[in-house]
């Protein structure tokens, strides 16, 4: 264990390893970049999923407000029956049932609003479920002339 051996060791290591160590490293070609890209794509997927979930929640809230029920099956049934009625009542030569369905939704919304208001007056339970809530803006408008013509 001498200084001579240490010196020989350092010379040999330098001769063997310096050509390897002196080569530049390029982070762009490193394998960990794959891990980084994978993580970024996972983050992007999470953002898209969150946005989709938020939009679905918002759509559910709108449908619940329009139908007056939290049950999604009720929304479908009510809208389906309204569309069927509007098709039946459609006069020959006229096209489109949009105005008819829209009128139904408005009328139904007002009915639900009145009902919830009455519940709110009867007890605390009505208030708890938002009985005094004025409802969405489109339900607060005056009924259109089509409402009266609807059977």
């Amino acid at each position, binding site marked *: *264990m001498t200084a*001579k051996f240490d010196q*020989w*060791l350092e010379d040999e*290591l*330098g001769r063997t390893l310096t050509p390897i160590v002196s080569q530049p490293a390029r*982070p762009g070609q490193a*394998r960990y970049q794959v891990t*980084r890209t994978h993580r970024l794509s996972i983050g992007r997927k999470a953002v898209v999923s969150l946005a989709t979930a938020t939009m679905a929640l918002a759509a559910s809230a709108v449908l619940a407000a329009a139908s007056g029920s939290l049950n999604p099956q009720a929304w479908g049934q009510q809208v389906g029956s309204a569309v069927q009625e509007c098709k039946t009542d459609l006069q020959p030569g006229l096209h489109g049932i949009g105005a008819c369905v829209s009128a139904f939704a408005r009328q139904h919304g007002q009915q639900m609003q009145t009902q919830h208001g009455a519940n709110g007056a009867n007890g605390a339970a009505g208030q708890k479920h938002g009985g005094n809530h004025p409802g969405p803006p489109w339900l607060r408008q005056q009924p259109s002339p089509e409402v009266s013509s609807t059977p």
Partner: protein
Amino acid sequence: MEPRPSTPAYQPGSLYDFDRLYRTSYPRILGTLMGVLGERAAAEDCAQETFVNAFRSWKSWKPDAPAEAWLHRIALNIAISYRRRARLREVGELVRRLGRPEPGSDPADLVGRDDLVKALRRIPAPQAAAIVLRHYHGYSNREIAVALGTPERTVGSRIAAAKRRLQRELGADPADSFTGPGPQMGTRGPSDVVIDEGREATG
């Protein structure tokens, strides 16, 4: 001894700083792994794996120890696992070859392999790493302790033991003063790897 680059502090979790750490440390980690494993391809593979593992825990890295010593510790664990797998493969090959004529040495295996690299391959990985860290990278006892995961006070004796073992592998009597490569050097073939799993594990 290789001059050591002075780098400003790294911020844990910073992607920019990790790229900077890679640029500074990758060649030195590769050099250490080359010393421990003795094969360029294996050293490059293990060096890349080191940075993948380090990147995964980069956010939780604590700057109380030098970043490069931390990387060396990861690299050393990977190198030990690599050596273990390589030895198992060699044993498997040996069992398969039993009863058949022994194949000659592949000339490609012998090209570019000098005696020191061969000897470093035959000693336990932590000992080989300690020699490279001290006599090539110029690491302090504290940095070597972090890299090997051992107490700082035992580093000196470990390096002395590593050098004694290396001298034995090189064919020189440790009791005598070293006078350069002895007549026995280079007489072992690549297949004569010493299996010393227990001593390697304890370092």
